[in-house]
């Protein structure tokens, strides 16, 4: 069963912040985040391993709550280039060969 993301879609004005959530019904070992622009392939953003760590680069960061089997992606001071569909991908323990992607969140940043 694929992870569920929320919200399904969000529209922001440039400079606003957004949070995208990813929730799994299964125990997680790692969470990946990817962004896909229209007509292109998904592009890797970051990976979080179990341990509740938080990662970030520039104005995009993420957290991973292993106990709640959830991860959140934080986009601050959004830019037009942040527009796209965001996917979380999850590894369950013992299945490093299978990354299951979430339902996706469409993000649109406007002027």
């Amino acid at each position, binding site marked *: 069963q*694929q992870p569920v993301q929320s919200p399904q879609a969000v529209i922001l004005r440039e400079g606003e912040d957004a949070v995208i959530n990813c929730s799994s019904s299964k125990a997680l*070992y*790692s969470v*990946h985040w*990817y962004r*896909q622009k229209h007509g*292109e*392939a*998904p*592009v*890797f953003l970051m*990976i979080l*391993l179990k341990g509740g760590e938080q990662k970030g680069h520039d104005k995009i960061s993420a957290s991973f709550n292993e106990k709640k089997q959830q991860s959140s992606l934080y986009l601050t001071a959004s830019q037009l280039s942040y527009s796209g*569909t965001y*996917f979380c*991908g999850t*590894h369950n323990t013992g*299945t*490093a*060969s*299978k*990354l*299951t*992607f979430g*339902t*996706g969140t*469409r993000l649109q940043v406007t002027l």
Partner: protein
Amino acid sequence: DTAVSQTPKYLVTQMGNDKSIKCEQNLGHDTMYWYKQDSKKFLKIMFSYNNKELIINETVPNRFSPKSPDKAHLNLHINSLELGDSAVYFCASSGLSYNSPLHFGNGTRLTVT
């Protein structure tokens, strides 16, 4: 230098035909994948290969047959194409670890008429 390349980019064919999609990676990765992205944009794993061996087969109809001649190549052959096979098919590769990101090819848009 394209890291993961797949061909063709577009494929338009009629129901009942057989078609193949090819994928090659030059990243030295051990693991390669096929993912299907449907009209709702859901990305679903189809197959996963590790060093030429099939690891994951996600209850895909046996009309779909992947083949990995070596760890840098993973092809997908589809027999007796159906309308529901229309989608974008992505090849990807990664190292075999939880912290190894997936690198995707540019996708093949398959349209079955």
